[in-house]
């Protein structure tokens, strides 16, 4: 330990400024690089990658919400797609205009987005009497019912949802600026024309960062520790004064708010909502995202979201370059089939070989390199629970 202060004293001031960002840990440095790449993304990415990025960021918001519920609070939910759908349809209904026999309220899109979060949260709160009484797979199966009931409502409430074919989604806008190809009609940054995808990219990035920031706060705060207590043992949690049913209801509501926002973002990214976007497979995809990333990890959920949403798009887009793929319907392995295979193998392999998902694997790797390398960096006290935090 004695050699470390000497080393850091030799740093001159610009380096000290950089080191004050605490980029010393590989995770933080990687995060900073990723953030820079994300901010600069629209300058050099093609439309295909921009579109994929929008889906990935929307999914990341939803996955963070689900990891708070499933990973932190330990409540298995197969109903996430339902809450995504509630958010998407609320946004579409409130922001949409009344036309072609469709209902619409023509509200400002910002208000519609906030309402989407609120309505989805209310739906989660309304489900929580059931959630509070059930646990484990009982809860997961009850929430499975929500997906099918929701789909039934969406297929039948045609004047709100457009039925099976869905309806178009009003573009997002703030006063004086629209996140579409119009108003301003032409906008260029550093020579790159900024159209709908470019503009939405920054909206999505901001929302995703806010979601991750709030998610970390919830997880580390009082509410998150109560949730972890409920996850690790309901009886033990109750015996130290945690109100189990209320914590479960909170977890469900918070996760539904996230899902509502994610649903509205997904609707914006697609430009259209249809019931098939919120089927059971979507619930399952979100579960896969958080399990691949490592349940309970915010960064892991985001990484899982990127993997699950970008992989199929990428394989289909670049299938012409993969020689062993055959055309769809010819009986061989086509791109869509290959992406399902890769997806299935990834799930099975991660669960069997990587304990704790990608986040867990990275953590183990970090510990191993720290042990193998120099006298390791000391554990920062801020990451452990400090006396102030753990005081009741």
């Amino acid at each position, binding site marked *: 330990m004695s050699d470390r202060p000497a080393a850091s004293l030799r740093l001159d001031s610009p380096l000290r400024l950089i080191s004050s960002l605490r980029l010393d840990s590989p995770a933080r440095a990687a995060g900073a690089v990723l953030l820079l790449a994300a901010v600069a993304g629209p300058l050099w990415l093609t439309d295909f990658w921009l579109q994929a990025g929008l889906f990935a960021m929307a999914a990341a918001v939803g996955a963070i919400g689900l990891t708070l519920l*499933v990973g932190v609070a330990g409540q*298995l939910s197969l109903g996430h797609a339902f809450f995504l759908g509630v958010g998407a349809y609320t946004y579409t209904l409130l922001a949409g205009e009344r036309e072609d026999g469709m209902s619409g309220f023509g509200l400002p899109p910002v208000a519609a987005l906030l309402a989407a979060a609120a309505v989805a949260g209310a739906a989660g709160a309304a489900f929580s*009497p*059931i959630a509070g*009484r*059930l646990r*484990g*797979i*009982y809860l*997961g*199966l*009850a929430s*499975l*019912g*929500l997906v*099918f*009931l929701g*789909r*039934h*409502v969406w*297929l*039948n409430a045609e004047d709100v949802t457009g039925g099976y074919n869905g309806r178009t989604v009003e573009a997002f806008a703030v006063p004086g600026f629209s996140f579409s190809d119009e108003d301003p009609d032409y906008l260029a940054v550093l020579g790159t024309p900024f159209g709908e995808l470019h503009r939405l990219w920054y909206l999505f990035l901001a929302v995703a960062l806010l979601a991750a920031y709030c998610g970390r706060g919830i997880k580390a705060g009082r509410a998150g520790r109560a949730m972890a207590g409920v996850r690790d043992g*309901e*009886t033990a949690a109750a*015996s130290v004064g945690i109100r189990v049913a209320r914590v479960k209801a909170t977890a469900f509501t918070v996760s539904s708010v996230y899902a509502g926002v994610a649903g509205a973002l997904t609707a914006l990214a697609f430009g259209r909502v249809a019931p098939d976007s919120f089927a*059971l497979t979507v619930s*399952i995809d979100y*579960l*896969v995202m958080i*399990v691949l990333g490592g*349940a309970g990890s915010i960064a892991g959920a985001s990484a899982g979201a990127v993997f699950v949403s970008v992989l199929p798009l990428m394989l289909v887009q670049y299938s012409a370059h993969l020689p062993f793929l055959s055309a769809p*319907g010819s*009986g061989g*392995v086509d791109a869509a*089939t290959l992406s*399902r*295979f890769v*997806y*299935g*193998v*990834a*799930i*099975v392999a991660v*669960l*069997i070989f990587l*304990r*704790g998902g990608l986040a867990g694997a990275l953590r183990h790797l970090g510990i191993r390199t720290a042990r193998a390398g120099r006298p390791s960096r000391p554990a920062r006290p801020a990451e452990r629970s400090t006396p102030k935090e753990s005081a009741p």
Partner: protein
Amino acid sequence: MSYLLTQLVNGVSLGLVLGLIAVGFVVVFKSTGVLNFAHGSVLLLGAYLVARLHPELGFWGALAAGVAGAALVAALINTLLVRRVAEHDPGVLAILTIGVDILLLTELTRQIGNDVLDIGAPWGASVVGAAGVSLPASRAIAAGTAVVLFAALGALAARTDWGLAMRAAAADPDTASLMGIRLSRTSAVGWGLAGALAAVAGVFLTSYPTPGVEPGVSVVAFAAIPAWVLGGFDSVPGAVAGGLVIGVAQALAIGYESELHFLGGGFGEVVPYAVMVLVLLLRPHGLFGQKEAIRV
């Protein structure tokens, strides 16, 4: 009156087939604590094997091969994959089976393509009728087969050493293991049994009046999940009863769809889930489930 009776009889026969699937869920859950999402694709595998092999082996030979194949694959899923997972958390295990389901279903979809394969059942499209009630022969045979299988299952569990080992392992795996019961064997048998039952159900679900073997059949297994939940997760008679409730409710909702139009078109498909949510609201542990006692 005879219309109502026809719907009821149809519902009971459908319910017994759903019961076959739901009992598979129960057996897997009791022997390994896993919510098995791969059940639907194992069912499809069984039906697919029968449809592909019946021109060569004849229907009965193909049926035996399909049942054996589905049982073997289910047992292998348990032995090779489920038992290798380090975290014995129900959520993680459920997602593992989702991964397996995706792999199996993708391969079967690729093999089947856009075809609808004929199951080649000897009873074909014949219809039996009595007292003004008519029923497809396949449904009547399905009901009879299911009742026989349930009785056989009950007798096996109650009267054989093998059944005793299964029940002991389900009641308390650690103690059973200490008493010399091989958990690897009981869990493989449980999964294999579930696979065999699923294959039988798959044959009935793909014979007349349904068109045949196509990838969508695996989704039907999901309709058995409400039946399983209604029965209370760990009770075989409960799963059968749950299947009957769901089957009758669904048949009635489809039979009287025009009167139920205010509930929206296609309500029959969501009836199982509506019933499940209602029952869970009133009885959180299902109709037959035992309330978990918590010891501190």
